């Protein structure tokens, strides 16, 4: 049976300690969860493939009427700039360029009705913050990333592999500070923060001795350290907590760097054929690393197409051309990842999610009934190829994919209108439900929360959002 804490029990037992918690959670190890785990988990790990920058649904997984480019075309007639192509599912089409993913849709769920929050004048990183933490920024405390929640509740699947690994995002980009703001474990404590691998080809650097240091040298350094610790005068001062905490984490780091599992970070060890299939660039190689890590027992991995203002999926111009390129980057590796996980048997216990902070449209900025300040100039008559594409930020209908780990297969959830504004008309689903669906599959209680500065902070705001039965194979039992 699950352990249930009431606010009172909790306050009584922990009030003094918890009240001191600031954002840095100096005592995060003392936090005690209210909620606990449920016994009906269908997954134990997660791969989140994030299409950062706003992936237009009508150009990817939810194509509408195709209008080829002609000089002098009316902007308001254009819904999709690519042909639709069939998928393995009857009557379901994807946009041209996603044929491979189309052929694995019998293994997962296609969501066509994700509705992003209304946060006013669009800022990508605010929506990304919201997607990854489920809270709208700013908040009065630093709220944890979904990966940190999962790390905190479930811990590492294998001790030596960090439980939350983030692949592909550099922070030395525009809005880098805003990106940092949600790549954080917040009040859950830095132990649960992301292990950052900005470049998958250099992943191994993060888990091996410093460049230029041989294994032998690394070992003798550690031996010297252990001898000197024994002799150090702190022994006699016996600084209990700090000393033990430091020693323990140093030992853990040493174990990781010496472990055979660390090889999972080395994608160059992959057979050439497999490497080449994945190698569509940084994102593809990130997928390859994610596969290797899951096979070795990673808990939560996110691979991002990388957010950089006006780059990648952030198509403020040349949308058609750029999206063609983006699809080339994602089609093969995502498909191969699913196939490989299925082959290794890991797909059964791994949820793979493909998502973006919001969608795009040629005309609507924000939501059709709640438009916000335009950021992109779109001419009524298009004469230049650079204006041919979805350049405005659209929040009322976005596509997502989910595979494995108890997610329904061959399933289509939700629907958008076939005419502009192509907004969600069936089964709208919001971020809190998405998160709760993931938590449900992982067996994390929907009301999991911690008392921070005397207020309960839940995995989703006030514990809102209900796991979506339409995405889950197993019947949801009330808990």
């Amino acid at each position, binding site marked *: 049976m699950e352990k249930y804490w009431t606010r009172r029990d909790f306050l009584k037992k922990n009030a003094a300690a918890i009240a001191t918690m600031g954002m840095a959670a100096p005592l995060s190890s003392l936090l005690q969860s209210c909620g606990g785990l449920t016994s009906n988990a269908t997954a134990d790990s997660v791969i989140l493939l994030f299409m950062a920058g706003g992936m237009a649904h009508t150009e990817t997984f939810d194509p509408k009427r195709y209008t080829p480019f002609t000089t002098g075309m009316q902007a308001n007639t254009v819904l999709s700039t690519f042909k639709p192509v069939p998928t393995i599912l009857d009557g379901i089409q994807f946009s041209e360029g996603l044929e491979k993913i189309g052929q694995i849709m019998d293994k997962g769920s296609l969501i066509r009705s994700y509705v992003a929050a209304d946060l006013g004048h669009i800022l990508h990183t605010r929506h990304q913050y919201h997607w990854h933490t489920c809270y709208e920024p700013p908040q009065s405390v630093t709220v944890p990333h979904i990966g940190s929640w999962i790390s905190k509740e479930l811990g590492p699947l294998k001790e030596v592999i960090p439980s939350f690994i983030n692949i592909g995002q550099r922070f030395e980009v525009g809005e880098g500070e805003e990106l940092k703001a949600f790549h954080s474990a917040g009040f859950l404590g830095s132990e649960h923060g992301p292990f950052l691998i900005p470049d998958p080809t250099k992943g191994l650097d993060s888990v091996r001795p*410093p460049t230029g240091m041989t294994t032998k040298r690394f070992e*003798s350094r550690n031996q010297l350290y252990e001898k000197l610790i024994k002799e150090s005068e702190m022994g006699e001062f016996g600084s209990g907590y700090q000393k033990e905490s430091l020693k323990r984490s*140093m030992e853990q780091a040493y174990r990781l*760097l010496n472990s055979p599992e660390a090889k999972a970070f080395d994608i160059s060890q992959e057979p050439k054929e497999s490497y080449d299939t994945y190698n569509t660039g940084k994102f593809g190689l990130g997928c390859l690393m994610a596969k290797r890590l899951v096979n070795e027992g990673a808990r939560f991995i996110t691979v991002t197409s990388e957010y950089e203002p006006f780059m990648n999926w952030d198509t403020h111009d040349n949308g058609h051309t750029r999206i063609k390129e983006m699809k080339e980057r994602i089609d093969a590796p995502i498909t191969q990842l699913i196939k490989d996980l299925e082959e290794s048997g890991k797909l059964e216990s791994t949820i793979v999610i493909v998502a973006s902070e919001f969608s795009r449209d040629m005309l609507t900025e924000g939501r059709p009934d709640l438009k916000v300040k335009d950021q992109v100039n779109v001419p009524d008559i298009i004469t230049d190829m650079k204006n041919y594409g979805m350049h405005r930020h659209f929040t009322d209908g976005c596509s997502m994919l989910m595979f494995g780990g108890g997610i329904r297969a061959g399933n289509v959830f939700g629907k958008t209108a076939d005419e502009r504004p192509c907004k969600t008309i069936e089964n709208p689903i919001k971020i809190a439900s998405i998160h709760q669906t993931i938590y449900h599959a992982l067996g994390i209680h929907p009301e999991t929360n911690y008392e921070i500065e005397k207020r309960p902070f839940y995995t989703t705001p006030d514990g809102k959002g209900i796991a979506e039965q339409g995405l889950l194979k197993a019947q949801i039992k*009330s808990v």
Partner: protein
Amino acid sequence: MISYICLAASNSLPVGSWMVQFAGRLHPLFVHFPVSLLFLAGVLKLFEKRIKGAEQIINFLIIIGSGSAIFAAGLGILLAWQDSYSGELLDYHRYSGVLLAVVSAGLVYVTLKKPDATKTKNLLLALASVGTIITGHWGAALTHGDTYLTEVLPWQNDQENSLPAGIAVGNPDEDDDVKLAIQVRTIFAHNCYKCHSETKQKGKLKLDEKEFIFAGGEGGEIIVPGNASESEIYRRITLPVNHKESMPSKGKSLAKPEIEIIKYWINKGAPWPNDMGKRSVFPKAELAPRNPPLPQGTHKNPIDLWVNDYFDKNNIAWKGKVNDRTFLRRTYFDIIGLPPSFEEIKVFERDTNPAKRKKVIDRLLSQNNEYAQHWITFWNDALRNDYTGTGYITKGRFNVNHWLYTSLQENKPYNQFVRELLNPTEESKGFISGIQWRGTVNASQRTEMQAAQNVGQVLLGLNLKCASCHDSFVSDWKLEDAYAFANIFAEESLEIARCEKPTGKYANTSLLWPSLGSIDSTSSKKERLRQLADGLVQPANGRMYRTIVNRIWAQLMGRGIIGTVDEMDNKPWSQDLLDWVAVNFVDNGYDLKKLLFLIMTSDIYQMEGNAYDDPAVVFKESYQFKGMLNRRLTAEQLSDAVSKVIYPVFNKSDYAYDPIVTAGYEPTGQFITRASLVENNAFLTALGRPNREVVTTSRPVESSLLQALEFTNGVKLNNTLEAGAERWKRKYTSSNKLINRTYQEALGRNPTKKEFTVTRKALGDKPTIGQIQDFFWAVIMLPEFQTIY
């Protein structure tokens, strides 16, 4: 087997058909009456001989009763499936019901076909009668709660009126009612307000005010004081989760202890004292300053007199003072954030002046720039000021770098310091301006509310965060108080939003304590801010000065006099000491350096450090003060120590705020680009420097894997140590010298014989750069290096 039948049945029927559902809901009707005939048949059987024609009546009852039992079982399965009942109770009801149906079928068969098998018939009839009671009981429990029957039994009454576990009520005095009602209010607020309060009134029921709670909703009163089992609210919250009338209908159901509390409260007569809102059950500190007379004693420093007084009362013994080396290291780190050099330690040890400890504290405090470069870390955290961060990109945030650096440099009196933060110039406006992201934000996070929260937390040791969304459940602060305070920072009065829903109401404009003066709501924002500053900095605001002296104490001693530095309503381990130091601080011109001097020249500051195994104990209110707690170096102290001892971690070009160019800082001697003045980076973050999106008032005390990885193979540290090794190799040709110098500079002492031997063996005669680098690494990873003890 039974569930298999249900499953088979459910698979063959169209889910959601209203007819099926309707039929299912007939189940109670078919159960409640005719099945009881079976029981009656059993009773009749007992009196068979006295009643004429009983046999026929019994047979008739058996046939009707059994038939309906079988029919009811079928409908029951439909109901369970269609209305999604589930749980243990249902299983009991289901299994006993199906069993009863089987027995009934047997009974009918025997009655009709085997009139001679009297014994079998009697047995089956007995079984059916008993089965009726059992099944009926589980069914009732399902709809009325599992204590429906037992709770009215007289011997249950003791338990009825005993306190549920987990309820914090002490002696039976009148305060109990208040405490109890507040617990009930808290449960209502967190579970029911969403649908039953000011903003939404499902079923015309509101649970947020006394009169509404007792008025009930459209279905009538919901509470029968003194009788929980007759109270509608109790019935609703104890129904099975999936029951149509179960409450809360949305979201989580109440936890068992919560249900227990409500039951206890109703049975106790549902007390709801009228003045509940006015009387506090929460700890509440005095606002006014207090100057207790110093206790008698031989100590010279008043702090020691108070500590001695406390030690006497609690039977705690003074420990010995630390040696000169440990004292100097502690003092250096606490005032200027750097370790002393070995040379400085030697000179200090040789000094025979009995006042040398005071002298060195004085000397360090007079190093204005070094002092500023250390303490700016503490203030940047508290004022959530940083060189980079969210908001700057859209001009929604302003730094206070220059104002803060120069304020520390000139040791600005704290009252003036606060005045300039609250009623700011262009240079100091960053604190109350908050962080404005692009787009719309939650009402409780508008910049005016951020200002109210941050001023409350940082300057007043007050948590307004709860109250900025709804009336606080953990203090007496109300939503209106938070808005009235936030209005001071607003151009126009703010519309009150409760849990993010606008209420159409507006608060007045006021300070949190009327005794500190009033704010003229009709005046300009500039004028209101001036009134705010005047109101808060006056000496009568003892709370503000207790807050700052407690923070400084915590920085030096590892724990505040009140452990929770942001919650100044909690209990200090010595109220006298806290009050006295705060008054002394005001009397001495709000001088932060004098405060540091006072504390650091005390005997207690110079006593041996205390280790602890469990940080949870340290922050408990029951904590006993025994002296300074060992502390971890901050990210900045650690980085600067490496810079000073081994090789600079940062260069002048890394300055995010350059005090040489902008604040007249003229470095002398060994120059170090201090980590406090560079942008945050992966190295410092791993070591615990926060990203200052929100106020931070304490740094992590624990290490983490991510931090250890940064130590173990992080590029920044590795490169620094490598460059240092190259330099040291050139400087020291002999291993022996190098080993000794490293220990001397890093730890302020010579290596022990054993340490020397171990290292000497690892390094050999002619160590390589790599070997030296690894030795450095091993030394700075020592807890002895990373701890102030």
